[in-house]
């Protein structure tokens, strides 16, 4: 079992609220990622980080933002949630090139 954690697991929130999805890993990995996945569908990379103070946008445009102040922590923030943000958000981390990505359990977000 990989040591990568996401909280909350489920979140139902009203439109316009600010939310932060937490992701932490205890493996000391430099690389971390956020993916968005609609149920049973493909994963879309929305953010990634190569290390502390390094963040980049992924393939899918997202209104969310991320920060990487500590190696083990990679939170994702939505300043004003909308129903279109309803989805599952998966966090992952990896060792340098060639090694697998370890995934957290995901946060299922519903915006009413």
């Amino acid at each position, binding site marked *: 079992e990989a040591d990568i954690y*996401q909280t909350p697991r489920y979140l139902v929130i009203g439109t316009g609220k600010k939310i932060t999805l937490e992701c932490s890993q205890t493996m000391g990995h430099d690389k971390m990622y956020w993916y968005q996945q609609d149920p049973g569908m493909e994963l879309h*990379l929305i953010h990634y980080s190569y290390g502390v103070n390094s963040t980049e946008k992924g393939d899918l445009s997202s209104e969310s933002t991320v920060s990487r102040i500590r190696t083990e922590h990679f939170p994702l923030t939505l300043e004003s949630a909308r129903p279109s943000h309803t989805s599952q958000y*998966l966090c*992952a981390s990896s060792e340098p*090139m060639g090694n697998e990505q370890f995934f*957290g*359990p995901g946060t299922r977000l519903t915006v009413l």
Partner: protein
Amino acid sequence: AQSVAQPEDQVNVAEGNPLTVKCTYSVSGNPYLFWYVQYPNRGLQFLLKYITGDNLVKGSYGFEAEFNKSQTSFHLKKPSALVSDSALYFCAVISDTGRRALTFGSGTRLQVQP
């Protein structure tokens, strides 16, 4: 650019029969290839990977995959399917030339009937 194709949305197989889940890829440079499995309301679990060496890779839960460079394929196989193998399977690729993250296929739902 890198991409992955999983041509089958769903694969149905009877318990005890062999299964194959197909994956083809496209990358610049040499590919690193992965298979993940996802159970309902869970994150992705790593099954196996191909980096270099033997084209037949063995992984978790009795799964294996064969790397075929000429056909740019990395099909997932298991000799004898279990009902508990029913899940969503994702193939993924990353190039050795420095792409930032894995690119995932669209997923294939495996349904194993008792």
